[in-house]
């Protein structure tokens, strides 16, 4: 640690923080483990105070919610795959410091394109061909949805946070519009498309209907990892993210990188929309993405844009969500209790980064003043 002894004697604050130098893996893992343990204890305390229920029962229930039966494990993996996939999709844009808050809408228009294919040409094509057409339609729709704010950002430097956020609401209204068109009764519920023929549905692999979804996202994880860490384009994204001027100085075409990256980000959202339709819902509502587009932002940042770390962050968040539902069901508690506990855990984990990066000192122990 670097120390800077000053000549002038000054009063030290009671508590102050310094930036840590690089920590060993062991140290950082220890800190994180301690923080998670503290989070669990805090959750237990909050549970007792709020509900009076034995916290061990609550934790048992949470584990039951994700691992109680083989089907629950599959469902956990499916939810994880969806959240992880969308997190991967937003990551190239975020790494470039393009604040894409529009994944929710980008996935949704991808879903809409897939459902439209099933609705209009579902009977005309064999299922395997339909699934491929759906993939391209979804990628195109989502890339366009992301590309519009991307082009505006690159050409006229508009604020992409607001632009992408607003595009979510346009996407939702677009979905409502098409459901209204497709369901003349006005019930606003499309329901499963092609329930008999199952055209445009992913096949079950080894009797597991979600296995294909999980495999596709696993491949996506590897591809995004390689793209960001090993490819030239991945490096360009990092440079543009750190400093556009530097990027320009070393001859990177910043506009082109922005547009290209945003299109890739959108296209990956399209793949996720396609998976949601062909591999899970076989339908669409304006709420089909269910907030995953926003949770993905948190996952991406929590994992510092590292796709491998994202796997674990996604599993954790899905585990907490499923646990919250199980608590509500088993203990007849309002589901908000589970959400409060989930919130505490996530907050604790995010704040653990603080302890990994900084060190807290009390006045007594140190003498010299210190500036980070």
């Amino acid at each position, binding site marked *: 640690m670097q120390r800077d002894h000053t000549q002038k004697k000054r009063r030290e604050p009671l508590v102050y923080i310094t930036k840590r130098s690089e920590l060993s893996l062991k140290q950082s893992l220890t800190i994180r483990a301690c923080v998670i343990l503290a989070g669990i204890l805090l959750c237990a305390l909050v549970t007792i105070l709020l509900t009076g229920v034995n916290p061990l029962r609550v934790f048992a229930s949470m584990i039951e919610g994700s691992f109680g*039966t083989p*089907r*629950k494990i599959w*469902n956990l993996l*499916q939810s994880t795959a969806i959240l992880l996939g969308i997190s991967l999709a937003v990551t190239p844009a975020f790494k470039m410091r393009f604040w894409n808050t529009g994944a929710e809408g980008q996935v949704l228009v991808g879903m809409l394109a897939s459902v439209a294919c099933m609705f209009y040409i579902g009977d005309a094509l064999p299922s395997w061909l339909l699934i491929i057409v759906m993939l391209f339609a979804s990628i195109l729709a989502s890339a366009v949805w992301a590309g519009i704010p991307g082009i505006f950002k690159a050409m006229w430097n508009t604020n992409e946070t607001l632009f992408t956020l607003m595009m979510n609401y346009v996407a939702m209204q677009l979905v*409502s519009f098409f459901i209204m068109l497709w*369901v*003349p*009764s*006005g*019930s*606003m*519920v499309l*329901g*499963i498309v092609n*329930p008999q023929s199952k055209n445009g549905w992913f096949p079950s692999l080894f009797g597991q209907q979600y296995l294909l979804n999980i495999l596709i996202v696993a491949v996506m994880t590897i591809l995004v990892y390689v793209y960001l860490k090993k490819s030239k384009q991945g490096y360009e994204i990092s440079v543009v993210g750190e400093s556009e001027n530097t990027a320009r100085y070393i001859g990177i075409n910043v506009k082109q990188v922005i547009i290209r990256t945003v299109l890739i980000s959108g296209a990956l959202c399209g793949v996720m929309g396609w998976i949601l339709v062909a591999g*899970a*819902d*076989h*339908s669409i*509502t304006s*709420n*089909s993405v*269910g907030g995953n587009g926003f949770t993905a932002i948190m996952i991406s940042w929590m994992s510092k844009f590292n796709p491998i770390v994202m796997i674990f962050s996604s599993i954790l968040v899905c585990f907490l969500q499923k646990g919250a*539902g199980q608590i*509500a*069901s088993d203990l*007849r508690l*309002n*589901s908000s209790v589970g959400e409060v506990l989930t919130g505490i855990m996530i907050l604790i984990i995010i704040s653990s980064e603080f302890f990994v990066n900084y060190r807290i000192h009390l006045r007594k122990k140190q003498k010299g003043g210190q500036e980070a």
Partner: protein
Amino acid sequence: MKKLISVILTLVLLVSCLACFSACSGGKAGFKVGFIFLHDENSTYDKNFIDAANAAAKALGLDEKQVIMKVNIPEGSECYDAACELVDEGCDLIFADSFGHETYMIQAAKEFPDVQFCHATGTSAHTEKLPNFHNAFASIYEGRYLAGIAAGMKLNEMIANGKITAEQAIIGYVGAFPYAEVISGYTSFFLGARSVCPTATMKVEYTNSWFDIALEKSAAERLIGSGCVLISQHADSEGAPKACEDAKVPNVAYNISTISIAPETALISSKINWEPYMKLIIEKTMDGKGEEIPYDWCGGLAEGSVQLTELNAKVAAAGTQEAINAATEQFKAGTLKVFDTSKFTVKGATLTEYLADVDGDFKGETNVIHDGYFDESAKDQRCAPYFDIIIDGITVPAAN
């Protein structure tokens, strides 16, 4: 030694008796029922179902482990997943409460033929014809008609007091979607009101959402601002009653009594009580006769499925309860029909024939007008409403 043996024997007897009691007092041991709810009890719509499920389980002696409830299940593959998880947990009967759950319940019903699947408000059981998938609704239009009578009497009182003129008796209605269930609902309410207050008219605003406190509140405020002197609703939040209490406009709600949140203005609410249906399906499934559950069950006033909440004496006009009671008796006797074609016109003409879309393909195919009335939720058709006609006297937004 003898003493010890007798003590042990007594204890053994006691324990086995207790074990027997606990097994016999409840419903059939091993029976489980699972519930899938769209939201939790913060939504008045779901609370109505949750309360009924708890009441039915209690009445039939089911213990806590025999009833599994899953809340906040969206209308997507999550519903199918939830149903499958309930099957894994040993449920013999699974019930879902939201319209959008239907196709996912059917998907699960096909996969698990030994489990009974029941679904409220749906329309497909009578066309799917699966032995283990069933729909249910209630003839709530009769309840709304009765609530409409209370509203009409209130309008009459306001006219008699000189508060409004006869032509100013305009009712505002906050509806969710331009969908048959909602149209049938406001039309029956309107016809009930007009049966006692002939000059009444109605304006409808749609929120395009089943549950949105802010939208429902602002829709009610807009209606009040445009001259409506009484508000009713078919949407699931307390937004509209709150707006009415602020503006001192009498209101009629749905599924819950709003007297506690609008003590000065809440009049009455119509309500579907799901307890009779829940009891029926639990009993049938427990007895191993799940396939005897009707494809499409329709509860009415007689079964106790359609109810009115407590009339707020502080707000209601004199004689309201008596008028409601009289009409209720007429409904039970079959002498009064809500959609009596002599009581309303469509574009100036009386309806003599109407092809309703009963089979759910968005094309009308079944004539549902006979013997001088529109036969809503007919026994041989389906229970989910199909009355989707805008009658004279009701104004809906132009786009719809």
